[in-house]
């Protein structure tokens, strides 16, 4: 679906957020809401000649197994924009939503960027989405902050080739770094997961010595798995086996489960996306290995859609997840953000990812407002420089980026675990390690 339009918030079709964070919206309802939302984007669009009507792009998937999270992220951008519709000096702000699952996302982004009033972008949420969108964004010099895209090669030239990323397309020669992310990368997540696997149970770890590693065959999954295995080996842990399967390969996941049962490890680490994680957990549980502890790192951790993804909440038990970021209640501004989010979206509770998206938007908005307040004409280059060099204190804490666009500080992870009924609950937070130079 292509949907490119600028719109003021008051003209957008209303959207309902999930009534309860523990219940995922029915896919059909989500699709309906997103269709309505995207259709609404076309209403009341200002023309490009309206030079003080600035816009931010919000690039998130409009469908997929984690739609509840994606909707919350888009909501958060809307909330940030709504709180800053007037930027001062006669400037106004709106958001333009693009569907990250658009097969022609790169072209859609390029089309949106033809509007010179687009000053920044929030998203994409996923690494494949980032790979598709970044060439156009980088060419246009538009500051882009992804809350959740984790592939190391998106920011680190040294990792790009191993990740299958053509770094020069994402970061054209002669252009300043314009892509930033607020999340740990897959390597950092793999390292943090290994440390958690080996940690004692009193530290919310597994106290494991022998670990079986499974990845989903994606560049992100491979990068996470490799980092996990390196850290495990360095800490004198034992790799009892490894397997890889791609989403949709029923025999592949069953074969991985058989290998896990054969190896009988202390725990299994899964490296990959949420949908594949759900398949592995479901297959383990359905094959008689419900008791096998599963550790994962990524957006599946704490996902309110987990129960549905595994085919029934009970099948999702015995799972621990490391979410790059913090639990909303642990964020410095979490309480205030949650209240504002609930007020804006019919009492819905925000996800941790939505707080990251909110901070990304506010970071860019603050840059624009600072330029305007200084009597300068807001430009893409000005906004980019302000984000790249500044430090912003937001809901999630202080945000500053290093020269590659990664977080300047060691990343935080929230640890979630499912109970016997397969429902996630927040356990603790752990601090990861800085990316290797």
């Amino acid at each position: 679906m292509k949907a490119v339009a600028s719109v003021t918030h008051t003209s957008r079709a209303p959207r309902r957020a999930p009534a309860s964070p523990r219940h995922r919206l029915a896919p059909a309802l989500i699709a309906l809401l997103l269709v309505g939302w995207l259709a609404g984007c076309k209403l009341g669009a200002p023309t490009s000649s309206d030079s003080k009507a600035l816009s931010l792009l919000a690039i998130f998937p409009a469908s997929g197994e984690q739609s509840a999270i994606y909707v919350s992220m888009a909501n958060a951008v809307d909330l940030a924009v709504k709180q800053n519709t007037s930027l001062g000096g006669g400037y106004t702000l709106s958001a333009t939503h693009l569907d990250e699952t658009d097969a022609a996302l790169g072209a859609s982004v390029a089309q949106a960027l033809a509007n010179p009033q687009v000053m920044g972008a929030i998203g994409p949420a996923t690494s494949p989405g980032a790979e598709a969108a970044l060439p156009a964004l980088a060419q246009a010099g538009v500051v882009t902050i992804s809350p959740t895209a984790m592939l190391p090669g998106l920011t680190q030239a040294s990792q790009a080739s191993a990740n299958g990323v053509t770094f020069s397309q994402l970061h054209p020669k002669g252009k300043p770094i314009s892509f930033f992310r607020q999340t740990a990368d897959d390597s950092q997540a793999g390292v943090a997961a290994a440390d958690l696997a080996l940690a004692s149970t009193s530290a919310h770890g597994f106290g494991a010595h022998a670990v079986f590693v499974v990845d989903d065959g994606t560049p992100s999954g491979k990068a996470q798995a490799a980092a996990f295995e390196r850290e495990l080996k360095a800490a004198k842990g034992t790799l009892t086996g490894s397997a890889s399967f791609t989403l949709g390969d029923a025999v592949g996941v069953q074969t991985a489960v058989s290998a896990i049962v054969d190896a009988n490890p202390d725990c299994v680490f899964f490296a990959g996306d949420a949908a594949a994680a759900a398949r592995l957990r479901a297959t383990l549980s359905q094959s008689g290995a419900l008791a096998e502890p599963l550790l994962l790192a990524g957006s599946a951790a704490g996902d309110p859609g987990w129960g549905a993804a595994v085919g029934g909440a009970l099948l999702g038990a015995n799972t621990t997840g490391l979410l790059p970021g913090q639990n909303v209640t642990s964020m410095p501004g979490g309480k205030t953000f949650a209240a504002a989010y609930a007020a804006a979206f019919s009492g819905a509770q925000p996800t941790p990812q939505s707080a990251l998206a909110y901070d990304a938007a506010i970071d860019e908005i603050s840059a624009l407002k600072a330029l305007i307040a200084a009597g300068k004409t807001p430009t893409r280059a000005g906004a980019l420089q302000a984000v790249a060099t500044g430090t912003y204190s937001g809901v999630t804490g202080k945000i500053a980026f290093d020269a590659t666009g990664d977080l300047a500080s060691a990343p935080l992870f929230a640890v979630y675990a499912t109970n016997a009924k397969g429902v996630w609950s927040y356990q603790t937070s752990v601090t990861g390690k800085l990316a290797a130079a």
Partner: protein
Amino acid sequence: MTAIRAPEARRSRPLALAFTALCVVVMLAGCGQASAPPPASGNAASLGIANVSATPPFDPSVGAPLPNDRIIAVYGIVGGGQYNGPASNLDMLAAYMPQFQQLGQQYAALDPTHPVQLALDLVINVIQPCAQFSKWCASGTDDATIMAYIQFCQQHHLLLFFDMQLGVEPVATAVVEQVQPYLQKYSFTELALDTEFHFPNTPAGYAEAAGYPCCLGWMDASEINWAINYLAQTSLKFHLPRKVLVVHQWDPSVIRHKSAIKLSPDVSVVLQSDGWGGAGNKIGDYQVFVQQNLIEYGGYKLFYPYAGDNQFDSPFQSPQDVMSLFPQPLFVSYQ
């Protein structure tokens, strides 16, 4: 691979050959002959008739018993005695049903993630003395008897596993000639292969079968793979829920080239650890046959004690005991 068990302490329950042979000689005719099922008639018969209307895309996982359910089965040998299992005749089976249903409820309570589906594990193809059953060293079951079991299963919502001991009859021959019409027609029919009673259809294999129980039978992975592929095609062609194949294993030697067994997304394969004896030995076998060599799903078999029969489990394991196995078996049968 070393089995963690004392061979002397564990034996597959003999078939009481003399008795079984006598029964089948009397009641069964047409051993090994192709048989076509009578046309289904009446409401009961129509319950299990597959819907063959083409409504693409067909998904064989819809309505499939595994891995969604746990199958609790009662074993029997057509024409056998009480010690051959409660399903050996319909009168014994009917009398056993209340106990059977209670057993199913116990398993359901122990694992809420797997509702229980009750089933019959019915041996319809029994190894026999070659002198009396010269073609395959095995007997078959007549259509009327099979239909009586089918109707019983329809009435009681049971799966029906056609369990085959085979003698020297190749798997493909036995399946196609004896159970194909039922597998194609009734969505609740499944297949089981008892590997230790199967011998190669060669002079050497025939000599071994003739000397049974001097020698232990075996089955090659290629024959198991044939069955997997056959069941997958049957499900897809006739739009039936994914079928289940149970492969019995009593000894490491009874399945050759086990690692060459190839899974299909359209068939659920259970490797059942078989054999009576002490709990420690049975658990050891399960570890070796299932946990350390898992194909897809685990299966476990229990042997009730019967008066006058010394081939039973001691102690007899409870559902709680069975569910403490890892992986938890998805197919449990009671003989």
